[in-house]
C-alpha cells in the first residue's frame, strides 16, 4: 500500500520572478510562488491500495512530475513523507528504489549499449546476479518479444523497440510499485498499446501502478482511481465514475476542465 501524508516540495528561486519593465502582466501571479521559493506541490495526502492503477491527471506544470519524482526518491520532499508498504521515502530511499520501477516518456537509452547489456547493467545495480539475472532477462525478453534485437545497439533501434527496452529496464528487478510518467507521449498507436497492456499486466501481477497521463481514454481504460493535481495541490481524488460526474455529458475531458477550471491548460 502507498500512503502519502502532507507531501510538499518547494524549490529556491534564483531571483523572484518579476515582470519585465514596461510590460503588462501576462496573467495572474502564480499562487505557488512565495518570496524566493516556488512550491511545486503542497500538502498532498492520498492512499493507494496494493494492486491498483491510479491515474494522475492535471494541466501542464501542475506538479505531477515533481510529485512522481518525490515519490520515486529522485527528489527529497520539503515536508511530509510517503511509505510504500511501510518503507519510508525519506528515511529509506534505497529500500524504496529496490521495490520501485520508474518509466517516463522522456527516458533515454544508452545508445552504445545493446538491450542485453543495458538489462544486465540495471539488473546488477539492483543487486541481481548470475542465473537469477539471466532468468529475469529471458522472461522479460519473451514477454516483450525482444529476441530479434537483443544484441543490437540501442541507437539502431526503432522508437517502438526502444520503448520495449525501457519497459524491460523498468521491470528488471520485478518492482512491486511501478510509476509511469506520461509513458505514451510521442508514441504511435501500436507502441502506446504495448505500454497500456503492460500497465494492465502490472495490475494483474499484483503491482501498484501510478500513471501520469494527458490521455483520458487511457484513464478510462485502465485506471481504478484518479487523482487530479492543480497548481501543486490535490484537487480531486476518487473513482473514474466519480470524476465523470463533474463534467457535462459524462466525459473525462470536460470533468477535468471542470475540476481545474475552464481556463487551465489541460
Amino acid at each position, binding site marked *: 500500500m502507498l500512503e502519502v501524508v502532507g507531501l510538499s516540495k518547494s524549490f529556491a528561486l534564483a531571483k523572484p520572478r518579476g515582470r519585465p519593465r514596461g510590460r503588462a502582466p501576462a496573467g495572474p501571479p502564480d499562487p505557488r510562488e512565495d518570496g524566493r521559493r516556488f512550491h511545486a506541490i503542497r500538502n498532498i495526502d492520498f492512499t493507494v491500495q496494493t494492486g491498483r492503477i491510479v491515474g494522475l491527471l492535471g494541466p501542464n506544470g501542475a506538479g505531477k512530475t515533481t510529485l512522481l519524482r518525490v515519490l520515486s526518491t529522485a527528489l527529497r520532499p520539503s515536508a511530509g513523507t510517503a511509505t510504500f508498504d511501510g518503507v519510508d521515502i525519506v528515511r529509506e530511499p534505497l529500500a524504496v528504489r529496490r521495490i520501485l520501477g520508474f518509466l517516463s516518456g522522456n527516458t533515454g537509452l544508452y545508445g552504445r*549499449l545493446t538491450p542485453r547489456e543495458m538489462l544486465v547493467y540495471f539488473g546488477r545495480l539492483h543487486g541481481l546476479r548470475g542465473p537469477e539475472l539471466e532468468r529475469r532477462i529471458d522472461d522479460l525478453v519473451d514477454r516483450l518479444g525482444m529476441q530479434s534485437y537483443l544484441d543490437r545497439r540501442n541507437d539502431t533501434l526503432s522508437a517502438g523497440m526502444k520503448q520495449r527496452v525501457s519497459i524491460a529496464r523498468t521491470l528488471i528487478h520485478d518492482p512491486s510499485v511501478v510509476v509511469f510518467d506520461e509513458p505514451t507521449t510521442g508514441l504511435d498507436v501500436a507502441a502506446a498499446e504495448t505500454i497500456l497492456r503492460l500497465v494492465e499486466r502490472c495490475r494483474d501481477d499484483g503491482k501498484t501502478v501510478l500513471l501520469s497521463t494527458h490521455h483520458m481514454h487511457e484513464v478510462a481504460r485502465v485506471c481504478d482511481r484518479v487523482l487530479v493535481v492543480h497548481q501543486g495541490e490535490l484537487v480531486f481524488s476518487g473513482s473514474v465514475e466519480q470524476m465523470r460526474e463533474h463534467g457535462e455529458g459524462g466525459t473525462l475531458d470536460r470533468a477535468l476542465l471542470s475540476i481545474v477550471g475552464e481556463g487551465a491548460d489541460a
Partner: protein
Amino acid sequence: MRSGILTVFRKELLEVGRDRKTLIFMIVLPLLLIPLIIQITTDFVADAEQEAASATLDYAIFGQERLPGLAETFASTPGFEAVPLDDPAQIPQAVTDGRIDLALVVEPLAQAGGQHVVQLHYNNAPLTSKVKPRTNEVLTRLGSDVRRERLEALGLGDPALQLGVAEPVVMVERGTAPMREVLGERIGGMLPYMFIIFCFLGAMYPAIDLAAGEKERGTLETLLLVPIPRHQVVLGKFLVVFTAGVVSAVLTLVGLGGWLALKGDELGGDIGAVMQSIGATDLVLIATMLVPTAAIFAALLLCISIYAKSFKEAQSYIAPLNMLVILPAFLAMLPGVELNWKTASIPIANISLAIKELIKGTMDYSVLVAILGSSTLLAAILLWISTLWFRREDVLFRQ
C-alpha cells in the same frame, strides 16, 4: 559498496570504448599524432636550416675601397653572389623585395690602422636565418688575414705571439653539469607539457559524456533511481574518466618513446644519451606524477560536467578551463622557472616542473613527496565536490 562502483565503472568503460570521438582523443592522438607532429616539425626545421645554410646569398657592398680585400673575399666564397645596387638608401627596400639577402656598408676609418667597422643589413626576423653567421664567418676569416698582415708589419711573425697579442686572455668553458641536466633543462619542459595536455584531452570527452551527456540523453534520472548511494555512481564514473586520462598520458609517453626509439638517432647522440640515462625508477616516478594529474583532471571535469545541462554547455565551460591547464603546464618550458617550495604550491605547474626535474635527474625528493601529497589531496577535494554536486537537486535538475 564495491560492487556498485565496479558495475558503473564496467558499464561506462564499455560505452567509452565504443565512442569514436573518445577513442580518437584517448588513443589515436597521443599514440600516432604526437610522433607524426614531432616528425613533421623536426623535418621541417631541419629542411629550413639546411636550405638556409646552403642557399646562395645575394649581397651588395658599399665602401669596399675602405677595406681592401673585402670584395675579393666574398667573391671567392662559395654561396655568395654580388648584386649591383646603386645607393645605400635602397638597401631596406631591396632586402624587402628579395633582390638581395644582405648588404655590407664599410664605415670610414676613424684613424689610419684603426678598426674597420662593417655594417650588416639583413632581415633579422626569421629564426632560421643563416645570413648573420655565414657573413660573420667570412668577415672573421678576412679579419684574421688583416690582423696577421698588420702584426707581421709590426715585426711579429710568430703565429703564437700573434695570438698572444691579439687575444691575450681566452676563456675556455668547462661546464660541471652533466649532459643529462643540460639537455633536460632545454627539452625537459616540453615533455611534461605534452603529457599534461594529452592527459586533459583524453579525460575531457568521457567526462562530458558521462554526466552532461546522461542529462542530455535522459538516462540520468533512471540512474538516480537505482538502489546504490549516489557517491558510488560518481566514483564509478570518476574511475572511468581517470582511467581515460592515465591511458592518454601513458600512450603519449609510449608514442614519444616509440618515436625516439625509431628516430632518436637523427636528433644526434646527446638527446639519445639523455633518454637512455633516464632510469626505470625515474620513469616510474614520472608515471606516478601523472596519476594525481589524471585524478585532478577527472574530478574537475566531472564537477563541471555534472553541473552542465547539456554536452554543449559542458564544452563551453571547459573551453576556458583549457587555458588554466595549459598556462601552468607551460611554466616548465620557460627559462629560469625552477622547482622550489613556491612553484611547488602551484597545481599542475608543480607536476610539470617535477617531471622536468626527473628528466634532468636533479629531483629533490622531499619536494616530490610534497607535490604528490598535495596533488592527491586536491584531487580528493575535487572528487568530494563532485559527489556533493551529484546529491544536489538544483544541480541535477537544473532548469
